């Protein structure tokens, strides 16, 4: 089942990236233009996803939100990937004091539910979009550190590493020239699976009022804005942004699974 679904997921991700790049230029309505007179209209040919209480076009807002959601998630994941993989690989290869301290910090972070850590970090650092990125990056960090550390520790005495040392390669060249490139495929899988998680996380933070704030369009914020109207039957205000969020996360998770199966047929689980 993986192959066609995986291709569909890749196509969906392509579409998301395209929307993130050119979305604001192609939306049918100005996402910020308010017209209270035509507020809370159900989906129609003019407003595909309906309008919100201020008469803003929900379809346009959902499309425009793609850029912000993807940008937050991607920058957070890249940040934690680069730092986490470097720290983890160094810990795994050199061991010693660095490894012990990094291990302690990771344990400390992991002693909390990570969403709660992210909440606390955003509150402490200040309620801004940049801090959502940092908070998401920090709570991702333990996974990359542990992953890179474990993979490097397993491989540090592998035959090809010994051979590289015999061939005159110094420790740094081995970590960054031999070991990390060999981890790249599995790191890519981690990253893809992680992107979905990062999107969920950032949207969750925005949903509870941290980070992105109205009137900026972001899926979590849009869902939160629509929630009060759900009870009175205007479901479209909250549901469409929620579905967009769900679809994006689903696409990244599927792509990650497909990528893993492709790279490592033995570990096929789902």
């Amino acid at each position: 089942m993986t192959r066609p679904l995986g291709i569909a997921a890749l196509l969906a991700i392509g579409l998301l990236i395209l929307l993130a790049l050119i979305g604001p230029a192609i939306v049918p309505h100005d996402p910020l233009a308010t017209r209270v007179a035509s507020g809370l209209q159900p989906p129609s040919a003019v407003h595909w996803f309906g309008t919100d209480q201020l008469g803003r076009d929900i379809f346009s807002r959902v499309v425009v939100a793609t850029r912000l959601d993807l940008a937050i998630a991607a920058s957070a994941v890249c940040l934690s990937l680069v730092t986490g993989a470097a720290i983890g690989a160094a810990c795994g290869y050199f061991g010693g004091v660095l490894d012990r301290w990094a291990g302690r910090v990771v344990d400390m972070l992991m002693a909390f539910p990570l969403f709660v850590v992210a909440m606390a970090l955003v509150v402490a650092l200040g309620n801004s979009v940049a801090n959502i990125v940092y908070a998401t990056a920090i709570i991702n960090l333990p996974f990359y550190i542990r992953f890179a550390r474990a993979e490097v520790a397993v491989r540090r005495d592998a035959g090809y590493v010994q051979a590289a040392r015999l061939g005159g390669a110094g420790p740094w060249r081995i970590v960054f020239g031999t070991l990390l490139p060999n981890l790249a495929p599995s790191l890519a899988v981690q990253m893809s699976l992680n992107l979905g998680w990062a999107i969920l996380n950032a949207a969750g933070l925005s949903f509870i009022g941290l980070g992105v704030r109205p009137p900026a369009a972001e899926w979590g914020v849009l869902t939160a804005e629509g929630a009060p109207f759900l009870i009175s039957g205007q479901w479209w205000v909250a549901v469409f942004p929620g579905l967009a969020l769900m679809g994006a996360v689903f696409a990244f998770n599927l792509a990650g699974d497909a990528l893993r199966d492709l790279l490592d047929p033995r570990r096929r689980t789902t």
Partner: protein
Amino acid sequence: MTLAEVSGLGVSFGRIRAVDDVSFTVAAGEMLGLVGASGSGKSVTALALMGLVKPDRGTITGQGRRAIVFQNARRALNPTRTIGRQLADVLGSPVRVGDMLRRVGLSPDRADAYPFELSGGMCQRVMIALALATDPALLIADEPTTGLDTTVQATILDLIADLARERGMGTILITHDLALAAQRCDRIALLEGGRLVRIVLPGDLPPRPVASPQAAAPGSTLLRVDGLAKHYGKLRAVDGVDLVVREGEALGLVGESGCGKSTLAAMLARLIDPTAGRIEFAGEDIAAVPARRAAAAAWRGRLQMVVQDAGDSLDPRLTAAEAVAAPLRRLCRLSGAALHARVAELFDRVHLPRALHDRLPYQLSGGQQARVGIARALAPGPGFVILDEPTAALDAALQDAIMRLLDDLRRDLGVAYLLISHDLDVIRQLCGRVMVMQAGRIVEAGPVAEVFARPAHPHTAGLIAAIPQGRALRP
């Protein structure tokens, strides 16, 4: 009495015919050998006998119960259940558990142990007890000694033979080792590619060719090691080793797994730091340079090692040519056409077709991988090469070819070897002198022929006795 009669047996998995038209019989009190390379269908035949796979052709008939002893006993036992409970599961009650353990040479108070608390040999004894508990008329032993040390292998096979004699049981011994089968079995069925080639008697097999012992070539001292030790906490992996390697000679180092020989090799190759001791290479104390800085040392290119397990020793991202080029680039500062020419020359030296230059490791066969590993070690032109189990992962025919290649290279290039192996046969083929290692110490050393003929240390004698006679035979 015929315990099993297999006729025209065929088993397929999808389109693969694992077993194709195999027929044989086993009688009470008889030991039948089922011998073949991996993939020859011998294990599938066993599973079919046990009813664990469904044959799609042929019949299996016979009287009495059958039981099987699998290879790698530790994995074949439930890891989260004590061995006593597992025995009781089969017996139906815990009453006779102690009795059964005693019969396979285990103390009854071991019943509360979990498999991970027992050695590999003890696990295999438990496995045998489980099989016996079903009161079988026919015991199938599927590679029962794989992964065990040579001395333990012999005791396990003795146990199976004794029990079979006591109970008048028939036995099927499945192995890839023809010499072993010839030593133990009454009749031997040779399998190849899922088919039965023929059934022979041990006496029909030709005798073992006599190995040609080489005289130790006296040269000047290349490597001198004094009091070398490596301790991990309380464990003394290597505990005070002295040795000398002379220029151009091949020195063998033999010992069971865990005796410290790989640790010794890693220290000599300066991959890890010794706890104590001195390593003098070409007159220089190379132990003075810490292992993490050894990569930049001037002698790095002259002291090389062929890393154990060729498949694992090649970076999965590098092609064969890149793997050989990497040390040339860093240690010999070669580049461009000179680099290219040297790589090509090395490929020729180890008889690798140049067409394989751009293959990735997974696209190479086991023998080709081994050759790439040898070429890489020879690349910087070393005077001394450590060979750590260079043929362990290869099958018999390839082993021979690689051994011949190594011997030729030594003569042509005048390079000295330290050959590490758990297999005395390999040492006998290649080396002039041999050292025997046990528990971190060298217990015996001398010319190969002398040590083999008159072992001075009981451990050496045990290792020699454990080699099945006529191992050089191939099915």
